[in-house]
């Protein structure tokens, strides 16, 4: 099995889980210092020809694509070439070497927080995440490419997972937000949110690897809760700011490189962006195991 983006925090988690069951090749250009002994680490850039050699070297049963870059500070061009061009290369090899299984980790953020969102979006909902937040367009493009691949190559079982905000030891916007010493909120807004613990995402990837599973699945965590309940469970102080004011400040801070949160991400604490995970529960047989309180508190734990 081949895992891209294996040296991210989630990637390491997946590799550790899977190497007990299968032989795992970890592909990532970053180093993997504490990798398990039986895991092969190929330190290659996904856009390089060398990736093809990895495919050529031995038969691969499944490819798990986690290597989506979302560093809000990286340049647009770098983002695009890594996420889209790199992924296209990967798809090319998956088709060429007739890999039977492809799992792509997308995100529920592709739907985007909107004032007119249904409370629970299903997999057919339009991917409008880029309407207000252009940096997410890469991720939408990756999702679309994977969908196109799903139809063009029926011999490969493609599974696209769209998990809600992943929290835990991972470094993403949601977890970083919950790690702030004082949680900023928007005055008069308290949307319902869904979060999922990283170990549940790993479990969902495991479910997706089951033979004959294919399709697009939303993956949600335990039960939704208002943002204010998350703050309460974290036991941290919160600080409400009016939206226009908060947006202006965040824009300013962003341009001064004082924050890792781009201003359009404020919509996530303003509007609802929740998914209906009925399909993944019934068809994939996935069920979140981590209770909501532990999921929320897991951001404080630095290592697992």
């Amino acid at each position, binding site marked *: 099995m081949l895992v891209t983006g294996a040296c991210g925090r989630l990637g390491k988690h997946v590799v550790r889980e899977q190497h007990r069951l299968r032989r795992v090749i970890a592909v990532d250009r970053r180093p993997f210092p504490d990798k398990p002994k039986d895991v092969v680490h190929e330190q290659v850039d996904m856009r390089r020809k060398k990736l093809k050699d990895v495919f050529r070297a031995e038969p691969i049963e499944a490819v798990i694509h986690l290597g989506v870059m979302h560093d809000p500070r990286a340049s647009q061009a770098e983002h695009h070439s890594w996420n889209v061009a790199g992924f296209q290369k990967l798809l090319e090899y998956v088709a060429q070497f007739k890999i039977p299984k492809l799992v792509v980790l997308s995100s529920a953020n592709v739907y985007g927080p909107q004032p*007119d969102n249904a409370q629970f979006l299903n997999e057919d909902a339009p991917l409008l995440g880029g309407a207000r937040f252009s940096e997410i367009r890469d991720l939408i493009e990756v999702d679309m490419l994977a969908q196109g691949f799903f139809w063009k190559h029926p011999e490969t079982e493609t599974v696209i997972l769209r998990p809600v905000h992943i929290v835990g030891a991972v470094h993403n916007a949601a977890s970083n937000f919950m790690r*702030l010493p004082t949680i900023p909120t928007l005055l008069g807004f308290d949307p319902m949110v869904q979060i999922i613990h990283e170990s549940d995402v790993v479990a969902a990837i495991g479910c997706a690897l089951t033979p004959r599973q294919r399709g697009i699945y939303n993956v949600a965590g335990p039960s939704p809760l208002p943002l204010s309940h998350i703050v309460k469970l974290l036991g941290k102080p919160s600080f409400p700011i009016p939206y226009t004011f908060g947006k202006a400040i965040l824009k300013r*801070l962003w341009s001064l490189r004082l*924050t*890792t949160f781009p201003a359009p991400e404020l919509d996530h604490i303003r509007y609802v962006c929740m998914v209906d995970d009925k399909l993944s529960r019934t068809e994939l047989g996935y069920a979140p195991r981590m209770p909501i309180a532990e999921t929320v508190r897991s951001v404080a734990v630095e290592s697992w």
Partner: protein
Amino acid sequence: MPLDQRIGWGDSFSVGAESKSLVRRWSGPVGTLRALAPLARRLVESAVGGIDSWMTGKLGEEFNERLARVPLSLTPTGVDEFGLDPQWTKYALASVALLHRKYFRTEVFGKENIPAGRVLLIANHSGQIPMDGALIGASLFMDVEPPRFMRAMVDKWTQTLPFVSLLFSRVGQVVGVPENAKRLLENNEALLVFPEGARGIAKPFDKRYQLVDFGLGFMRLALETGTPIVPVAVIGGEEQYVSLGNFDGLAKLLRMPSMPILPQLLLPFGVLPLPTRYRIYFGEPMHFTGDPDDDDSLIEEKVFVVKSTVQSMVNRGLQARKGVFF
């Protein structure tokens, strides 16, 4: 300044020495506030206790007894999946129930017509502010057996308003999209729909009680989920604010659905709606069968049946009423 820093404390965030000292200087008043927190909490608790007993005094023990009987399915953190919080709903219902009983002195007819399971309430819309929805909700809780929390569909525009979006979500009002409605009906909730939409609520005074075009969505929903439709006529809403017309240009500019011209706002206490007497008529449940994906013209026929039922209920209600305020 400390304010801005709190907002953007990302993990790669580094504060300069100068701004750190600013934070420290500012921690003084924050510390004092922290010390006052237990006192404030006790004050709030005693205030809540006081409100609770005052509420029971005004509305009677029956209110609490009915509250305990409302069926709810809550998540571990104490809200339902749409964000309804029973605590918020209790206070919201209590205040609306006071308006219902004391201010508008609502008379309710045909309360036996509401089935216990899933139901779509189709009502005429009036009154510039959605007081009609609130009062139908109050009567579903106070007068109808078994008591239930009514769910209504609100305009997506309300979601962009601070506090309003929060309040609506906590008291069980959801954004008006078909997916939400379907999910609520599948959970056997009572769902209120105003098929006239925002055009209905902003009728000028000379067009009062004349229903505007109904949307077709509710009928497709009823056909798809096999839900009985209860037509509802609300009398008394049109006179609470006398509207001379609408500033369409201004409404567009402010991105509001409508901007009524209300001369009474110039009077002292003119912001309050006039204390008209509301009358709410629940009609007999109507059952429709057919394909929810039928052509518009076929759906329109069925919608017309509902619309004319509501209109005739409104007309009969108007004839039966002796005066607007009593």
